[in-house]
């Protein structure tokens, strides 16, 4: 490879201004083209997986281990981080609210933030780090050691056998992780705010109930479903397109976390905007903490 370097665009063109501009355009064109090709390949991967999902149900021996891994094994870590996030929120906002004498509004702020934003994002981040990157590494190893080829050679379809169960597990079980993160966060906030700082329990909760609606809970859960789908597809795609060797597997695993995380934040923004518009359809007066 290294003995015959491919000719970069700037060597094809001369060094005049026109030539430089042309090479600049060509470099950008290549970048855009590569990105489009990668995006197209990822879309095709998703489409084919969806087609398999509706063609035939996955076999139960592929379903249960994945459901267990996503739903059960991830619960403790999600619960733990959720608790801490709830407490940290209470610590951070207490002094500001105290200065203006509104510490009883703390409940509304903490619980609203948790249910709409932090709960889903936290659960998804944990899932991407704990399960997503492991899936990418596992499928990557299977690709590198020809196990995926072997599956196909024996008439099983790798997308049906490997990707569909992982996708379904993430899709169906991430809402339960989110509920866990929400609940433990709320409990953590209550513990620090009410038990430790001795904010009046009645006002803490009546303010919360007033501010946080069922719709807010739904927003969080709807978002989480999209996060789960994105994590599963990004991780499986990275695994399936893993480069040879241990290095390739490591890269697939890292890439899957980084890309999942970017997708989570991007989806969070986009879905936040879209769902807010729905919110104002149902509650035209808008949200109010005070």
């Amino acid at each position, binding site marked *: 490879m290294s*003995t015959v370097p491919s000719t970069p665009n700037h060597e094809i063109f001369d060094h005049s201004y026109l030539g430089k501009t042309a090479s600049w355009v060509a470099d950008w064109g290549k970048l855009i083209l590569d990105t489009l090709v990668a995006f197209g390949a990822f879309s095709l991967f998703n489409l084919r997986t969806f087609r398999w999902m509706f063609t035939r149900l996955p076999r139960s021996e592929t379903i249960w281990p994945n459901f267990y891994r996503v739903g059960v094994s991830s619960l403790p870590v999600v619960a733990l981080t959720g608790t801490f996030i709830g407490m940290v929120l209470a610590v951070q906002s207490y002094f500001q609210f105290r200065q203006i004498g509104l510490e009883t509004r703390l409940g509304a702020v903490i619980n609203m933030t948790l249910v709409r934003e932090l709960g889903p994002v936290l659960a998804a981040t944990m899932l991407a780090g704990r399960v997503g990157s492991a899936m990418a590494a596992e499928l990557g190893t299977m690709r590198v050691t*020809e196990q995926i*080829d*072997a*599956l*196909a050679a*024996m*008439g*099983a379809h790798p997308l049906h056998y490997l990707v569909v169960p992982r996708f379904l597990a993430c899709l169906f079980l991430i809402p339960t992780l989110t509920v866990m993160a929400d609940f433990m966060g709320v409990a953590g906030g209550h513990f620090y705010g009410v038990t430790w700082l001795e904010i009046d329990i009645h006002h803490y909760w009546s303010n919360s109930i007033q501010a946080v609606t069922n719709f807010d809970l739904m927003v969080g859960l709807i978002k989480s479903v999209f996060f789960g789908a994105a994590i599963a597809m990004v991780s499986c795609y990275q695994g399936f397109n893993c480069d040879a060797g241990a290095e390739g597997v490591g890269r697939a695993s890292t890439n899957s976390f980084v890309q999942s995380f970017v997708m989570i934040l991007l989806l969070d923004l986009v879905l936040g905007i879209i769902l807010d518009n729905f919110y104002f359809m149902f509650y035209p007066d808008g949200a109010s903490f005070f």
Partner: protein
Amino acid sequence: MMIEQIMDEQQQPLVEIKGVSVSFENQHILRDVQLQIPAGETLVLLGESGCGKTVLMKTIIGLVHPNRGDVLFDGQDINRLNDQELSYLRLRFGFVFQNAALFDSMTIGQNVAFPLRQHGRFTSAQIRDMVIARLSEVGLPDSVVHKKPAELSGGMRKRVGLARALIMNPELIMYDEPTTGLDPIMSDVINELIIRTRRRNPVTSIVVTHDMNTARKVADRLVMLMPLSRLAPGESQIIFDGTPAELDSTRDRRVRQFVNGEAGERLMEMRGESPAEATETSHGSQS
């Protein structure tokens, strides 16, 4: 006897490779390969590491898609089938992977039973008996059934891979270096197994091997593939196609050197290169 049998069975070859070219990201591996394999034949595929033997076999079962050309199996164009038709057709193939490619999340028993569970309608007891019978055919005791692939030696894994490929009694079996890394006795066990499998049912086989013992013993016909980088432009990539007897009398120096294991002018080439380049090519040619 073999020839008559082939003629009786059908006129059309079982596998037909028509002008197949394969490349990966600007690296050309196969160029315009033509090959016909009649039903019942045992074809041995020779060629140095990295010349594209594995890629050619993967093209035949549709794991690699050619950039140009067609692959026909029993008259059907592999690359025109949809996912489901293809997975149905693959029931008729057995593929022994170079490094076994056992599923390491499953036990040996589950590995060998995988094709049966995937397609067959057998009871657990039947599956168990078939698995044990196949394993003993490749010289493995019952006790391996509950082990994981990581607990076995490379040679044992290879034999498990063989048992797994044979369990559905496929029509076309492809062996990718089935004896590489086995001791001489075990190699001969595998040779006998290949021959026995063919004798028992009318199976077509493609065997990739570097072991000339195996090649001479099992082959009806031998084909030698040359890496594209060593060919003159326009020259066919298949530099030899004939019977074992013809192999011994061939005049092509490249084929004779390969068969006799002589480095010949390669040594000169290596000396001409800088040390850095030499190590790089030796890495690149591992397969």
